């Protein structure tokens, strides 16, 4: 199979969607810029015309609401936000409107909109340009949230999201853009709500989300060198999330680590940890560990950034903890 980068896979999925379905259109900020969307939408405006690839004023609320309304009028819009932070200006259309709509009208209408927002952080951008806010959306009924970690899922989840009759928040991470992997040329769907087991193992389960799923694989390699056999689950969908697969693994290994790119308190990791701790209560040999951001805004300076974003080593240490080994006491 071909190998593509994560960003190429996103770009390809957009192109195939636009080519295949006249209901699909893109709207949001940066769509006509050569650099704004990090190459993920490169030249789509030239290929499909600026009517269907619509770069907009800085009006997050109205632009997102417009996408919601277009979806209600039969289109399949993808509304693009170059950063998750900007979505905070569009919470009304996303939450009050899109997420509630189907329920409010007892299923007579639904909102097939994809809200794509980029996790775009590091590089000393600071607290207002780094926020990983996925957990807020995970909390909201009526909204689905997906967070691909591989090129194949970056494509497959976008195709699935556009096909889904519900509002889906699609979050891609700039740090993954250069990651490579096999990506089928044809269209296919990564099922929303299904996690992927990236590595089977017996000793400890690592549930990774987005960028942290990639770090989990690195951690698993490091653990393997110490004869610790880690199972790595890439969650892929945050809402709904694949409880069955996670719980099965948790019951098998009895030791679970959640690796989440967001803040700790009341984050995605809390939900998964709480569920695992309750549902696999009798099978756990150790408390569930959470590897997350600390509960602080993002700093800028390099030293603080390096301490802020968890690395594979933090997952390795968490694994040692679940195994009752002293941290730092490597084999």
């Amino acid at each position, binding site marked *: 199979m071909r190998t593509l980068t994560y960003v190429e896979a996103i770009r390809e999925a957009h192109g195939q969607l636009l080519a295949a379905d006249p209901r699909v259109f893109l709207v949001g900020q940066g769509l006509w810029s050569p650099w704004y969307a990090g190459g993920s939408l490169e030249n789509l405006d030239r290929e499909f015309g600026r009517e269907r690839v619509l770069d907009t004023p800085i009006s997050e609320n109205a*632009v997102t609401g417009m996408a919601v309304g277009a979806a209600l009028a039969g289109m399949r819009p993808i509304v693009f936000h170059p950063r998750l932070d900007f979505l905070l200006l569009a919470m009304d259309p996303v939450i009050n409107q899109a997420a509630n709509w189907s329920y409010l009208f007892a299923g007579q209408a639904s909102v097939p909109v994809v809200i794509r927002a980029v996790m775009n952080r590091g590089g000393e951008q600071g607290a207002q340009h780094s926020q990983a806010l996925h957990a807020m959306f995970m909390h909201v009924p009526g909204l689905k949230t997906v967070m691909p970690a591989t090129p194949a899922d970056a494509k497959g989840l976008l195709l699935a999201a556009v096909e889904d009759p519900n509002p889906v928040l699609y979050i891609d991470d700039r740090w993954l853009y250069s990651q490579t992997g096999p990506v089928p040329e044809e269209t296919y769907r990564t099922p929303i709500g299904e996690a992927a087991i990236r590595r089977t193992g017996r000793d400890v389960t690592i549930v990774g989300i987005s960028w942290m799923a990639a770090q989990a694989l690195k951690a698993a390699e490091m653990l393997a060198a110490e004869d610790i056999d880690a199972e790595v689950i890439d969650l892929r969908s945050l809402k709904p999330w694949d409880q069955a697969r996670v719980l099965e693994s948790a019951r098998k290994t009895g030791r679970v680590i959640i690796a989440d790119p967001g803040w700790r308190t009341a984050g995605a990791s809390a939900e998964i940890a709480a569920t695992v701790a309750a549902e696999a209560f009798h099978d756990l040999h150790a408390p569930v560990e959470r590897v997350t951001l600390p509960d602080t805004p993002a700093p800028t300076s390099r030293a603080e950034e390096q301490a802020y974003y968890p690395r594979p080593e933090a997952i390795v240490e968490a694994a040692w903890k679940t195994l009752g080994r002293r941290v730092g006491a490597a084999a």
Partner: protein
Amino acid sequence: MLRIRRAEETIAGMSESGEARCPCHLSIGQEAIPAGVCAALNPGDTVWSGHRSHGHYLARGGSLEGLFAEVLGKTTGCSGGRGGSMHLIAPEQGILGTVPIVAGTIPLAAGAALAYKLRGEQRVAVAFFGDGALEEGSVHETLNLAALYKLPLVFICENNLYSSHLHWSERRVADNLHQAGAFHSVRGERVDGNQVEDVYDAARQAVARARSGDGPSFLECRTFRWRGHVGASSDQDVGVQRRGELAQWLERDPIRRAEERLAMNLAVYSAEIDQEIGRALAAARSGRVPDAQRLAEHVCAR
């Protein structure tokens, strides 16, 4: 108009008696606006509105039984008993949704207009909202987008001078809402919202412009609500002091004025309307209430 008036008086009664429990915002006194605007629309056009939307729903062809049943929380309600008075829908009639977040449906209406434009359809979207909605920034964002993309969108502002308990002068400096779109190059006009022909004429032109690709228009329709902000009581009853304008606005009753112009007594339709309302209400009353088991249904569509 008379049908809207009577229907809302019926809802007022249901609300007062406690039969209806959801919050009901009545547009009694403002009926010429929905009536005039919706008369200017074609079948494929769509309307969107807010918390005070019974009139829009009825003028656009929503069923009386569906409205009453919704207000009573029955499964036969237009929203399946999930919305109550503030959330109405009737996709077949082109009523794509009314919800109470102030200004919430204005960007949505723009989205529908964008859909029509992208598909090359000759359809128009209409956003109904109150004077208070202009205080939400999203409206100004939408005005710009609508002008920029020449959307087939008509903004209908029902300026009843009050937002809840606050007179317009407590919320802005100038009485100039028809100019709301000027900065963004959206054509604006002020009409007497209690004169149904005036509303109709202005709406017809705005809709024609939208349909022919000339972009959005903004109509300020000046009017007044007779009842309180929510429920059947008057403002006075709930302790809100208005400025004594009510008496003068009662004089401008849109229904009586239409009668005068038509030189006929609309009361001749009263009996018929009342019968229709009676039947619809009886049917609504006999509808089923949802049972608790369906609570988890329709969170997501399949």
